[in-house]
């Protein structure tokens, strides 16, 4: 205990300590940042088969965090269903990550919303490890990746999303 007190008597050490604490809390809170390479995700699809994000390299990818119980997510699905066929033909893919706890609810929503893009799921809701790793605080949350797997934009919707995808497809 005395040793600790001695350290704090030293002003430089105290400053260093606080800088270190500040740095740690900054790192802990950080979401994957725009301009950085997307971390790998590997989860199971509806059939229980592993589906990794890295297997989509070479395509423009929209990572979409959602759940069947999220009204705004379901609304955005309608928009994605409308633009998906045209963009998929050009090399675009959607990697949807559902935070549903019940597989049946997830499957039901996929059917009801007529979703044909890639779907993976990890049980646990907000506490699912993928949600923790990406620091998801609300859904829908989306990340748009370029062909090299770099994060280009977050939470784009509607016309803005479509325009950006077209732009990235041409690169």
């Amino acid at each position, binding site marked *: 205990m005395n040793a600790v007190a001695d350290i704090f008597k030293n002003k430089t050490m105290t400053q260093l300590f606080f800088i270190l604490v500040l740095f740690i809390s900054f790192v802990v809170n950080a979401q994957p940042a725009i301009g950085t390479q997307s971390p790998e995700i590997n989860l199971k699809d509806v059939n229980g088969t592993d589906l990794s994000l890295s297997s989509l390299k070479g395509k423009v990818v929209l990572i979409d965090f959602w759940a*069947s119980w*999220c*009204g705004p997510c379901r609304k955005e699905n309608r928009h994605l269903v409308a633009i998906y066929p045209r963009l998929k033909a050009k090399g675009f893919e959607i990697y949807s990550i559902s935070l549903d706890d019940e597989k049946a609810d997830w499957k039901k929503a996929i059917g009801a919303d007529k979703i044909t893009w890639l779907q993976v799921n990890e049980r646990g*809701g907000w506490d699912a490890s993928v949600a923790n790793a990406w620091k998801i*605080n*609300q859904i829908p949350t989306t990340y748009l990746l370029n062909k090299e797997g770099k994060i280009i934009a977050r939470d784009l919707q509607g016309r803005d999303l479509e325009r950006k995808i077209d732009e990235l497809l041409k690169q």
Partner: protein
Amino acid sequence: MKTKYIVLVIIMTVALGSVEAQFTKANLQASGLTCAMCSKAIDNALKQLSFIEAVKPDIKNSAFNIVFKEKAVVDIDALKNAVEDAGFFVAKLKITGSFSNTEVKNDQHINFAGSEFHFINVSDQVLNGEKEITVVDKNFLTATAFKKYSTATTMPCVKTGKAGSCCEKAGVAAGTRIYHVTI
């Protein structure tokens, strides 16, 4: 010997059959400017309460299904405060209790699971087993819904949520928190 055996069986049956008076689960609907379930904030705030075991989204009612820890005393106001601290409001709160011969009379107070309850708009009845009650206090439902319930009793406690001096003869100290509920 035979009589002793029968008495023992009766005692055992009564002991096993008696249910501890407690709340087991709740269904909570929150409202706000944005989708309440789509934010981690309420989930986080609720899970920090010591008497909560689990919080799950309820798709059908756009609500939260809450499971309470076994034998834990449920603080109903703390549920509301957690939702409000997260930046939302309670739009509806239904709580399930395991009752055992609990007599309920319209516009009268009872003590259950450590809290005082005032039943409004109910028919006189005896509650047994799992029963759901809805909290109708101010800030536990929409303003219009509260207005409807607040006119259902002449007792002053409905406006404040606290016992008036009128309750003292029934053994409830003035100022005690009284939850207004219906079935």
